[in-house]
């Protein structure tokens, strides 16, 4: 007990200047085990510490407190305490002990889920991310937790600000996978299919040494979303995907690949029968909603194909060609597509004719020019970063080892009749 009290006094004394805080951190590290040993009795001491001034000490105490198993009643009080702590703590002190902070926040998320009120955790988690990040391009372990809370509470808009940022630094690869996967799901929920495609693409093509489940699930959704958005399935993974992914992903997602194949044939009846047949498989992956959306997007795809052949068409004709039931339905579909900006057309209600038009955008306006200009600026910063990365990579010893080895074998200037290593 004495040691704990002494520790409290030291925390209160040494939390003012930066150098003091550093020495405090060393003390706390040493005292960590003793704190954990007394975890059950630490609660009253927490009241003596002020989270907005003694953030580091409070963090250590809090972490030791919440270490053990937690009941539902305790969870309620803990949630309040941690939320208050997160909102009032000092970012610089927190960054000195990032793993402790991450552990505390993860426990916070577990408790919030235990109480089945994920909405309570969304705002504090966002604050926690902002305080932990060293820059807005830094992906911490808290990002996927936050997105998970957003998903469970259906609070998609909150996740938007996190998703908009470009990520350049990642702590752990698992964070990136989960972040992009959850981000993709949130985007699907908000129907931002382009963003979802981008995020899921990142998961599928990320470097991985062995296949992991997140990538498999992401690939299934990736196929479905690209069917909805582009009308085509990705036939081959791009060259920069890891070889592990290129070989194994297709085998593990067989039903989806077949769905994509029957989609490309264009017959609605076939695809509906296929979906009925494999309904339980899709349902077990929680993808049935997406599959249904993909099937309905087929009508859109067919109508778009019509714009490439015809200048004007009657609603009855459209209904026949796209296998819809009536001209009324066709009109509804076309109207929806015009509103979404997917086609450019005018409907003449008097004789039921639809006239397809060209894209009226001339790109001559000042706004468009500003848009292009800002894109160029963004590209320039990205290019600088890429060049830096490229240089770093060229100096990597592992790369030099392999590149040097190759060059020696295949340099035809010193062509040797006897090969050094014979590969069959």
């Amino acid at each position, binding site marked *: 007990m004495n040691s704990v009290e002494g520790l409290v006094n030291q925390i209160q004394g040494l939390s003012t200047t930066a150098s003091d805080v550093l020495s405090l951190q060393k003390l706390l590290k040493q005292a960590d085990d003793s704190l954990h040993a007394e975890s059950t009795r630490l609660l009253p001491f927490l009241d003596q510490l002020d989270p907005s001034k003694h953030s580091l000490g409070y963090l250590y105490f809090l972490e030791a407190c919440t270490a053990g198993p937690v009941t539902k009643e305790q969870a309620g009080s803990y949630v309040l305490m941690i939320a208050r702590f997160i909102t009032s703590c000092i970012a610089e002190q927190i960054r000195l002990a990032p793993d402790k902070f991450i552990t505390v926040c993860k426990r916070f998320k577990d408790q919030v889920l235990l109480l089945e009120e994920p909405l309570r955790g969304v705002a504090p988690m966002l604050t926690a991310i902002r305080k932990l990040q060293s820059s807005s391009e830094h992906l911490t372990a808290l990002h996927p937790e936050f997105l998970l809370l957003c998903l469970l509470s259906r609070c998609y808009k909150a996740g938007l600000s996190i998703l908009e940022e470009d990520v350049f630094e990642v702590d752990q690869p698992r964070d990136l996978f989960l972040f992009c996967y959850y981000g993709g799901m949130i985007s699907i929920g908000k129907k931002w299919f382009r963003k979802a495609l981008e995020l899921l693409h990142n998961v599928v093509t990320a*470097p991985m*040494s062995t296949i992991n489940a997140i990538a498999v699930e992401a690939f299934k959704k990736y196929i479905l979303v690209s069917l909805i958005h582009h009308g085509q399935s990705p036939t081959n993974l791009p*060259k*920069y995907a*890891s*070889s*592990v992914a290129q070989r194994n992903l297709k085998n593990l997602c067989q039903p989806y690949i077949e769905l994509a194949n029957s989609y490309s044939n264009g017959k609605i009846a076939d695809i509906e029968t296929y979906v009925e047949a494999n309904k339980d498989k899709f349902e077990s992956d929680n993808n049935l909603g997406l599959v249904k959306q993909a099937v309905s997007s087929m009508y859109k795809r067919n109508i778009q194909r019509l714009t490439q052949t015809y200048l004007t068409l009657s609603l009855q004709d459209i209904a026949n060609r796209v296998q819809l039931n009536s001209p009324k339905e066709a009109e509804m579909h076309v109207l929806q597509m015009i509103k979404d900006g997917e086609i450019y057309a005018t409907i003449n209600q008097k004789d039921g004719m639809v006239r397809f038009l060209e894209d009226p955008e001339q*790109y*001559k*306006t*000042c706004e*468009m*020019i500003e848009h*292009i*200009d800002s*894109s*160029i600026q963004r*590209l*320039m910063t*990205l*290019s600088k970063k*890429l*060049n830096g*990365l*490229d240089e770093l*990579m*060229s100096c*990597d010893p*592992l*790369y030099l080892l*392999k*590149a040097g080895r*190759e060059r020696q*074998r*295949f340099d035809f200037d010193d062509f040797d009749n006897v*090969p050094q*290593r*014979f*590969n*069959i």
Partner: protein
Amino acid sequence: MASSSSSGLTFKLHPLVIVNISDHYTRVKSQLNLPPSLTSTSSAATSNNNNNNSNGGENNQQKPPRVYGCVIGVQRGRTVEIFNSFELIYDPSTRSLDRSFLEKKQELYKKVFPHFYVLGWYSTGSDAQESDMHFHKALMDINESPLYVLLNPAINPAQKDLPVTIYESELHVIDGVPQLIFVRSSYTIETVEAERISVDHVAHLKPSGGSAATQLAAQLTGIHSAIKMLNSRIRVVHQYLVGMQKGDIPCESSLLRQVSSLLRRLPAIESEKFQDDLLMEYKDTLLITYLAMFTNCSSTMNELVDKFNTAYDRHSRRGGRTAFI
């Protein structure tokens, strides 16, 4: 031997002459092949043709060669304009000038440029020398008062002016003996548009590897500095007007009139069609730049990914380079 000339003639030199002299000198020097470790015999072998050096092999290594030639141009009243030049073979040790060659050249040039006369001669070196006076006197039967254009081939990066000097000859009484001595004259550089373009082209080709990118960068830098200068001048005028408005500077109506007339000249064109076309062109340029940046970025990205895959992918496919044939 140099003091400023008192003849009152104005000299105008065209850059073509300077380029010609420098080209002649460089050609001779490089054909001479002057490495310091060259032995005397081999240098004697190479120094046979196309050099105007007085002595034999050994001297070639110490002294850079001197080249000689004639300059031609027009004299109108008090203005002497030097347009062109051609080379001559002259041996200062024997002082033999190839007269027939000189006359033939003169005739040829007369056919093409009937107005041009031989105005003088040129040579390379750091300073005018006594021995040059002989050549000078030799030319005096063609032109009673020839010019001597001297180019200093030593490259001095600190020097801002051109290393070209023009000398005239004057009769001075020194120690009771009337002698011809060289006196320096000032000159200006005069160009025609075509000359300016080609000289500009030559000047920008040479330095720093001279790739197309450098040329483009140089041109854009030129435009950029011009715009910067315009910007700073406008700022000065603006500051002046603000000061006048506040009352710090006394009002001067003539200046104000000039400023207002300047302002009234802009905008030069104002119409909707012009705005349209301008935006179209601007957009096109921006899109091309965007495309160029994109390609650049994509290629860097591609290289990066290739390197990454080579380094870290355990079972990387090497794209067909598996079996060793």
